[in-house]
């Protein structure tokens, strides 16, 4: 039933008004002729509204004559009539087709490359590798073999552990897992020394294997041997071993900062000026001239790629330059203020340097006062394990 109505919508149907005294007869005759009627509604005592399919409508004529009814077409509905209406709008239709075709065509190219997962390797480097391997913006998606590109990259680079290229719409997502630089692992049966990684004073030294060279309280520099990988016996002579042991030492981290008492500070006035330009595949069109009317300003440049759907990027970028005005303001710090600022800055830097903050033993702050500036030095004393193994090369 619903199927029949759907078919009629596709093939077109008319809603007609039948007027006469023998409408029931008209309907029964239609039934006998197997004419499908639907949506029958009495609108008046002598009038009935009926929907009839286009083909069936032509067959209605003898029945209408027989029952002496009058028929008026109310509405023409369905796909054929809709198309007929758009026949007059040929240009609209043509443009519509062109747009759809161009979307289909453009969706076969890659318009955006996203690189994720890179921390150490800069994005430009990865993009240049990709470009050498035939994956670049504006490349046709068809015939692109991501597998071979992935293999190429993995052959070329040692510092990339895993590469995945996922093409989603016009968006190529390159996922990278960076390989950790692997520490040199020395086999147990090879000979090695233990050397210092940092400067410091040794507080504790325990050698499980090998002869300790440094003593407790010794000042050692980076690279010096702490536990030698040899054993000396009275009868056996010098014998090389795989040195093993733990060395704890006091290590100092220091940070110096200078804080001038007079400083110029930027105070934004809140005035902003935006300038837009459109970039179509490396071709830039400035919509406004690029010089700002402000005397002192910061410029912030942002680009935004246009996209149709979530993953369908277009080769058009909108380039926005924001000029925000600021005024310079002179600030005079007192000595105390400058000191506290300096200490805070230095401490923040040191926190990043020290790996394990629980091992910090002592904090020392030295300040020096000059005419124009205050010098601050912050020193952290940290107890750390400073030994690493190094192969003995004969």
């Amino acid at each position, binding site marked *: 039933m619903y199927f029949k109505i759907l078919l009629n919508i596709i093939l077109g149907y008319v809603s007609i008004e039948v007027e006469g005294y023998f409408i029931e007869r008209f309907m029964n005759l239609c039934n*006998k002729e197997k004419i499908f009627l639907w949506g029958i509604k009495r609108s008046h005592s002598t009038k009935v509204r009926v929907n009839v399919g286009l083909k069936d409508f032509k067959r209605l004529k003898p029945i209408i004559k027989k029952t002496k009814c009058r028929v008026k077409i109310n509405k023409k509905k369905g796909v054929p009539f809709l198309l007929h209406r758009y026949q007059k709008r040929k240009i609209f239709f043509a443009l519509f087709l062109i747009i759809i075709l161009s979307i289909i065509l453009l969706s076969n190219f890659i318009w955006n490359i996203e690189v994720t997962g890179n921390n150490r390797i800069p994005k430009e480097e990865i993009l240049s590798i990709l470009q050498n391997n035939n994956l670049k913006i504006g490349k046709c998606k068809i015939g692109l073999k991501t597998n071979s590109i992935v293999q190429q990259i993995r052959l070329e680079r040692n510092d990339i552990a895993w590469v995945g290229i996922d093409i989603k719409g016009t968006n190529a997502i390159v996922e990278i897992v960076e390989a950790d630089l692997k520490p040199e692992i020395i086999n147990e049966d090879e000979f090695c020394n233990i050397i210092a990684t940092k400067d410091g004073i040794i507080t504790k030294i325990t050698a499980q294997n090998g002869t300790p060279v440094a003593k407790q309280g010794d000042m050692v520099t980076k690279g010096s041997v702490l536990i030698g990988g040899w054993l000396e016996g009275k009868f056996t002579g010098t014998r090389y071993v795989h040195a093993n042991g733990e060395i704890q030492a006091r290590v100092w981290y220091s940070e110096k900062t200078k804080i001038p008492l007079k400083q110029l500070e930027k105070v934004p006035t809140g005035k902003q000026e935006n300038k837009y330009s459109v970039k179509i595949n490396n071709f830039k069109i400035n919509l406004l001239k690029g010089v700002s009317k402000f005397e002192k300003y910061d410029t912030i440049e942002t680009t935004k790629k246009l996209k149709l759907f979530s993953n369908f990027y277009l080769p058009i970028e909108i380039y926005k330059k924001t000029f925000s005005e600021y005024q310079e303001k002179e600030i005079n710090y007192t000595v105390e203020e400058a000191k506290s600022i300096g200490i805070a800055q230095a401490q923040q830097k040191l926190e990043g340097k020290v790996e394990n903050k629980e091992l910090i033993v002592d904090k020392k702050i030295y300040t020096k006062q000059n005419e124009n500036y205050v010098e601050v030095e912050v020193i952290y004393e940290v107890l750390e394990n400073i030994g690493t193994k190094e192969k003995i090369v004969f």
Partner: protein
Amino acid sequence: MPNKNRKVQSKVSRLLDLPQEISTNLPKITIVGFEKMLIENYKAILEYQEHFVRVSTHIGILNISGYNLNLNEMTTDDLLITGTIDGIDFESISEE
């Protein structure tokens, strides 16, 4: 003759467990809520008005009263009536 024929049909149908409305000319009337009514195996529409529909079937006449009655779909053997249905009554043809 038709009576005899029907009996034979019903025997076969009983054996095969066919639904009655397919094997015989009996109408099947389905009412969904008070607003939808599907009549299968009907013969003809005798009268159609907004508040009254009279449908003839092979075993009698079916009177439906209500408001805003529409004949939504009409094919050779199905008839879908929508609208608020108030009452239904049957006028069976007494067999001689």
